[in-house]
């Protein structure tokens, strides 16, 4: 099941060139970019790990694409996303966010229904990948 988080996630995977063009758009707007990765795909998992430092003062997207490729090499079989921060109003708000790498197989989620008091149903999203310990979730078989 393809995880759909952030921008462009209903589109086919972006090529490096398209990623570069999106990053260039962010840089032209003076939004610094940073790269994050995780192996916990739960939609409520907002705390992804940082890859390297946020990239300030860049002019050209070639540097970002280079760093994305470094991240892919360093963290294969994980989710990697690019975030553009907009500091225009003295706050770090996310202006763009899109996934640039996913594991080869994404097992997806199971929906668990728990019946509680008065026959209320509680729903729970359970990621199949999260059954395995962190760091071991998407290793190629």
């Amino acid at each position, binding site marked *: 099941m393809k995880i759909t988080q952030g921008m462009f996630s209903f589109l086919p995977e972006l090529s490096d060139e398209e990623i570069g063009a999106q990053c260039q758009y962010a840089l032209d707007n003076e939004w610094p970019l940073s790269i994050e990765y995780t192996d916990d795909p739960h939609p409520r998992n907002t705390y992804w790990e940082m890859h390297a*430092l946020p990239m300030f003062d860049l*002019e050209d997207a070639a540097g970002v694409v*280079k760093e994305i490729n470094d991240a892919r090499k360093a963290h294969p079989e994980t989710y990697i996303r690019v975030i553009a921060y907009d500091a225009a109003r003295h706050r770090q708000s996310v202006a763009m966010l899109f996934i640039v790498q996913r594991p080869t197989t994404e097992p997806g989620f199971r929906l668990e229904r728990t019946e509680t008091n008065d026959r209320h149903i509680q729903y729970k999203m359970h990621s199949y990948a999260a059954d395995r310990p962190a760091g071991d979730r998407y290793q190629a078989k």
Partner: protein
Amino acid sequence: MSPPSDPGAAPAPPRQGFGSASRSGGGGKDSNGKDSNGKDSDGQLAEPERLGDDETLDLAAERVEAGVDEVLRTLDEELVGLAPVKQRVAEIAALLLVDRARRRFGLTSERPNLHMSFTGSPGTGKTTVAMRMAALLHRLGYLRRGHLVAVTRDDLVGQYVGHTAPKTKEVVKRAMGGVLFIDEAYYLYRPENERDYGQESIEILLQTMENDRDDLVVVLAGYSDRMDVFFESNPGMSSRIGHHLDFPDYDVDELVGISDLFLKKENYKLEEAAVPVFRDYITRRREQARFANARSVRNALERARLRQARRLVDLGDKVSRDDLLTLKEEDFLGSRVFENSEGGDEPSAPDDEKSES
């Protein structure tokens, strides 16, 4: 400029058609839907169209279109002297123009090696030329952004193990699409300390210069003698540099020319009597230690401004526009350069030059 789609048509539109055609739309779009003058918004040339084997290309028109002349002209106007440097820059511009023309006929060749080293005494205009070079390469489509990132050892080399690589890589990322200007590059290499982190930085730079040469141009700058030593101890660096430009020292006439430009820019003028005095000042200052060419001239004029201000304030009288505009003889005669030479006892540089870097 777009080639006409039918092979029998005129090879190039008339020169004056460039500006007007794109604005009025009279030149129209070619079959690929590209704007007929092929430029993007900030004046950079777009990737050229492929031409047929029997077509011809108007190099002069191409030159005008790329704005090469404009860059070279501002270089000529704003920088006094430096004839060998200007000639070399013009040669590089010509090479890149021909290289573009070759590509349009499908004659592929390796992208020319554009990494450069600028050697010369302090204040000979190395940074300024690097900035112009970035603009030129951008106009010709060799750099996507054409900005200049000027760094020194401090920006590249870290303070502890594992600090250098991220630092250098960050600077390289910032310079992508433009020129990375490394001032006093020889400080990167400290032979007396074999554990110096500078070596690590040099290795990353070497790798970058090889792998990312489509994305950035590295310019190493510094004093001639020390750069020679640096290149001798880093042969890999020397061989990756395509152009070694040597910046000659300015002679007195050129320095006077520089000061004229500076005064004009700052809205000052020299009193008639002050002209020979200032010339004398430059002649004397040149002989002394720590003379930094154009920078020293600028500093001298800054100090003359100080003395002028003090003179006017001490006068405590009404001042006219002319008083505010004019630097007088005594504004220069107050300098220690004159004191020293008359006393003749102290060979070192004057005190008021000590603030110079």
